[in-house]
């Protein structure tokens, strides 16, 4: 079965190249068919591999492809590694990608640049597959940067929009900050271990656990510094606190992109990396502490911001950021299986939520502001049910004693339990942050549901809807979310305008086409069942993981033996979040406005995303441009040129004016100079 791995990886590349080069010289259905077809084949080939690892009939294998670089002791090749960890990622990537390709047939229907879009999607999938099949750190970095490129291209897909371009550059550059850490980590790893081959490094890592190394003039623990450097890379890709600012802006891309790249696959690459290198991280207690802390902090940070956003995609984006935090602190406390399990279930329910949101946006003529939604339950019932399944999954609905629950219940609860069961202070910190974030998750998820599907229609005031009604055609206009104003005004907008009948302005949203509904249906099944079916395998089956991650058996026992209150904590806070959301957005819709007013500064702090964007703007962007101008005008032109070539020229010019005076042409002046010279020479000879 493993023999199919080259096809799984390279079919999407081939499809991307063909679709991209043919571009518009063939009808767009050609590019769409070839890319979608390739992805479905990859997907069909991936599942047997995954199931083979679940049943234990397959073992790890490395398929060599081509020599890459050999430079002294540093050598790395193109090779495709398949083990349990890869197999998990394979099904996640190919399944979500195939479904997103299919979904895009409907979602991108009216876009003139469809071949380009599908080519980018397939290119992304290829890069992501290269990342997860990497057998050495450099190929992982290749995939890492490849997905970054695809992400850049897809965020900026609607390249006429300044906001999309800015978001694309931001995503790439912020990720590069992480990549700096990743690269330094690879360099350090090479000089410490003499190799960048992942299995060789992992094998040698425990032997280095007591070693120290020089770094920036300090002496530090070798493994800690290497793992922290690598983790900085993971922070960039997985949008962890500090390097997260690009992810919400990445929502400028088309929604299928958000589902595939910025929810299910690319952003989980950091988690994958930490799990892939788990034996290495297990030799680095400080680095793991950092992973735990950053994960927990991101988890709570993103959840607080998510509660205040109005753009449906941004809410889900912050939710993604928050869920990634869970995965990281799970890894940080040593539960790599739980981290991967949450990655697995999250891929299904978060892709579902994004694609559901896309279906809503499609129905609402590219309106993304939830203040202009309402009562869509009856208008787009299929989307509603799919979103409900996703919400039940992300909020972790399930009852421990019944042994039944939606996907998120299994994975998120396991993470909270293991954090508690770990028994360290950081573990407890992560547990409490995670539990609080679970409350907020429940609140913002239900807030999203209630604002979108319940209540009364409020879409009369939406420019997009007005445009659609007045123009009477279906052309998608550049989506243009209302400017984020200050809190007071925001809430006023939420009150339906009285001018239009029932707030609909005579517009009736339509359900999405079948190509969009099939992926929603399939992912709903995943969101409902993925946890139930695979929990025993991912969490408790040491044989399933084999050598692919560091499997900590006693920790899993500790996880199962936490008090019942801990096991029910997530469920209880979920109910609280649901209740508050219901109270505020169904029972009495004046509460959010009052609460925002009461909480003034806190609300604005959350609403403005803790002011990270502003901070970075004034800390990095403005000084960079200022310094650039100073170096150019004052440094190059004002100093180097002035005193360098121009100065030399000036001296020569002045000097030649002076020299000219000696060449008067008068015989007597020459004679005088000769005489003086002669006197000087004689003087010198004589004395």
């Amino acid at each position, binding site marked *: 079965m493993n023999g199919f791995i080259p096809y799984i990886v390279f079919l999407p590349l081939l499809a991307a190249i063909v679709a991209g080069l043919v571009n518009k010289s063939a009808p767009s259905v050609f590019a769409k068919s070839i890319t979608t077809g390739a992805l479905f084949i990859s997907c069909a080939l991936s599942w047997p591999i995954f199931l083979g690892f679940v049943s234990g009939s397959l073992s790890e294998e490395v398929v060599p492809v*081509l*020599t*890459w*670089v*050999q*430079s*002294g*002791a*540093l050598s790395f090749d193109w090779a495709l590694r398949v083990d349990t960890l890869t197999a998990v990622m394979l099904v996640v990537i190919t399944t979500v990608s195939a479904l997103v390709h299919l979904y895009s047939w409907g979602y991108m229907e009216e876009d003139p640049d469809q071949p380009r879009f599908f080519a980018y999607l397939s290119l992304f999938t290829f890069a992501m597959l290269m990342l997860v099949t990497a057998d050495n750190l*450099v190929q992982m*970095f290749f995939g890492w*940067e*490849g997905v970054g490129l695809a992400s850049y291209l897809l965020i900026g897909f609607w*390249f*006429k929009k300044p906001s999309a*371009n800015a978001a*694309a550059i931001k995503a*790439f*550059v912020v990720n*590069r*900050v992480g990549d*700096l850490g990743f*690269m*330094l980590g690879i360099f*350090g790893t090479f*000089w410490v271990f003499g190799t960048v081959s992942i299995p060789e490094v992992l094998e040698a890592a*425990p*032997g*280095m*656990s*007591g*070693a*120290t190394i*020089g*770094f*920036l*003039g300090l002496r530090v623990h070798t493994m800690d510094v290497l793992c922290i450097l690598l983790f900085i890379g993971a922070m960039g890709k997985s949008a962890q606190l500090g390097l997260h600012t690009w992810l919400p802006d990445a929502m400028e891309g088309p929604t299928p992109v958000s589902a595939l790249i910025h929810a299910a696959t690319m952003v989980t690459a950091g988690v994958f990396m930490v799990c892939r290198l788990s034996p290495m991280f297990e030799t680095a*207690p400080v680095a*793991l502490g950092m992973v735990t802390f950053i994960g927990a902090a991101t988890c709570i940070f993103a959840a607080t911001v998510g509660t205040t956003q109005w753009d449906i995609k941004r809410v889900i984006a912050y939710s993604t950021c928050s869920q990634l935090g869970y995965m990281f602190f799970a890894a940080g*406390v*040593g539960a790599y299986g739980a981290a991967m399990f949450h990655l697995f279930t999250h891929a299904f329910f978060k892709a579902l939520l994004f694609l559901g949101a896309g279906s809503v946006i499609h129905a609402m003529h590219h309106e993304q502001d939830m203040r202009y939604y309402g009562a869509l339950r009856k208008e787009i019932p299929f989307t509603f049910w799919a979103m409900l399944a996703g919400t039940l999954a992300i909020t972790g609905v399930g009852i421990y004693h019944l042994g039944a629950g939606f996907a998120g219940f299994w994975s998120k609860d396991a993470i909270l339990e293991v954090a508690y069961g770990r*028994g360290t202070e950081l573990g407890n910190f992560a547990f409490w942050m995670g539990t609080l974030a679970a409350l907020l998750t429940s609140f913002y998820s239900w807030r999203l549901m209630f604002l979108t599907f319940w209540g009364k229609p409020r879409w009369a005031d939406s420019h997009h809807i007005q445009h659609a009604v007045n123009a009477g055609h279906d052309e998608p206009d550049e989506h243009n979310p209302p400017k984020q104003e200050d809190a007071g005004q925001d809430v006023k907008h939420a009150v339906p305008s009285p001018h239009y009948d029932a707030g609909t302005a005579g517009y009736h949203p339509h359900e999405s086409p079948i190509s969009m509904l099939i992926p929603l249906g399939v992912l709903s099944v995943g969101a409902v069942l993925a946890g139930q079916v695979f929990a025993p395998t991912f969490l408790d089956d040491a044989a399933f993981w084999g050598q692919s991650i560091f499997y*900590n058996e*006693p*920790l899993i*026992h*500790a996880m199962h*033996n936490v008090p019942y209150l801990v096991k029910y904590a997530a469920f209880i806070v979920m109910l609280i979040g649901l209740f508050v959301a219901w109270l505020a957005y169904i029972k009495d819709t004046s509460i959010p406005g009052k609460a925002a007013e009461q909480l003034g500064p806190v609300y604005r702090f959350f609403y403005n995303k803790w002011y990270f964007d502003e901070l970075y703007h004034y800390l990095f962007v403005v000084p*960079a*441009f200022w310094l*650039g101008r100073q*170096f*150019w005008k004052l*440094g*190059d032109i004002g100093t*180097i*040129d002035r005193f*360098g*070539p121009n100065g*030399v020229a000036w001296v020569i010019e002045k000097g030649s004016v002076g020299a000219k005076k000696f060449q008067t042409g008068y015989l007597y002046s020459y004679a005088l100079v000769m005489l003086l010279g002669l006197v000087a020479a004689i003087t010198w000879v004589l004395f």
Partner: protein
Amino acid sequence: MEFPILSLMLAVPLVAAIACLFLTASSARMVALFATLINLALGVILWLNYDIGGAQWQFTERAQLFAGFEYALGIDGIALMLIMLSVFLMPICILASWDGITKRVGEYMAAFLLMEVLMIGVFAAQDLFLFYIFFEAGLIPMYLIIGVWGGDNRIYASYKFFLYTLLGSVLMLIAMLWMVNEAGTSDIPTLMQYDFPVGAQLWLWLAFFASFAVKMPMWPVHTWLPDAHVQAPTAGSVILAGVLLKLGGYGFIRFSLPMFPDASADLAWLVFALSMVAVIYTSLVALVQHDMKKLIAYSSVAHMAIVMVGLFAFNVQGLEGAMMVMLGHGLVSGALFLCVGVIYDRLHTREIARYGGLSINMPKYALFFLLFTMASVGLPGTSNFVGEFLALAGIYKVSTFVTLVCTTGIILGAAYMLYLYRRVAFGEQRNADAAAMTDLNAREWAMLAPIAAAVLWMGVYPESFLAPMRQDIAALETRLASVAPQYDSELTVGTPKDHAANFVAASHEGEGEH
């Protein structure tokens, strides 16, 4: 005696150059293209016949001229790769000038062909004075290309170029005379093994440094480059960025490092300091440029700084990385200047703000431009990644601090290149004339497609390029081994810990005893 292929590669463009002087414009173009293609074919033959792992110096030719001055040619793998770069870029330069140059075409083509002679000569010369002649004579055609066929401010640019580059040369010549006097030979391979007195090495090194640092160019003697690029015609920029900048790096790898190893080690701090400044400084300056060519010129300075730190890492990775950056940068920056030239030919401005939204009317152009932008940014899978990665990996062993500072170049590089790409290719079509520009024609395809293929080849399978140089780099590393610096990332292996960090005692309570 072997077939004198190197001499033939010098003769073909030389004869063609003389012929061009007497031909009409259209025939001069054809002759120049034909001659450069022949040289490319000869280059391929050279590469195919180069015996990897064989003698260090191959295709050697020697003829005694006068007073110990020898006509001596021969190449090792390093020279081979740089000759390949030159002969590969030459036909593309001729194509790039096909329509753009209308006055004095014959002289123009002659200047380019002469340039090719001198470039190949520099890399193939085995005699110190022969090298010097080729090295310095290269200034003349470039001076003419900028001064005669350049932009509005060409006189200032050409004199600045000449002044800067000549200044160092004088010192280098004096140093060479001293060396020949001391060692009793002007044979480069012999001199590479000669141990000069440590005290003298310092001065010799500085004299060579004065010349090579300008050619590189290193900060702060880089200001001639942006002006020269801006004023030079497209093909002039391509050769300038593609090959002439590599003369500095070649000088370091051929002369400074093997001939003055002790001085190189002693003064490595100077190189590191200047390179670190260059990476940050010129990257930030690139960020605020309004002129496309200036932006790419400043980015070249930043890239060349990576070459410098790679060379002075004194290990295989650093040296091979430096060579790969030189080759990759030669292709990519050349291609970027061609990309500028393509739209300059249509709109006659390099002002970034005059463009915008070119992806709409020039999708094929936008694709090429994107590829070269990404290569310049050092995306894995392209030529520049391999070089930058190896060079930075090499320097990590010597100094983590230098690595940290230089690696920020990948962030800043992404910022200024993507910012450029966004303003040119993305966004709305702001100007009607820019929006009316046509996509690439066949000639422009023929220029860009081969470079694109080479960039990807070098990125995916760099072994083709690393293999010929391996032995020579290893020899150089051996030569430098005795002076290799103490590195600050020194590892001390301690006692491994008993438990993994997340060790949990099987009792389900508490944690391990660490």
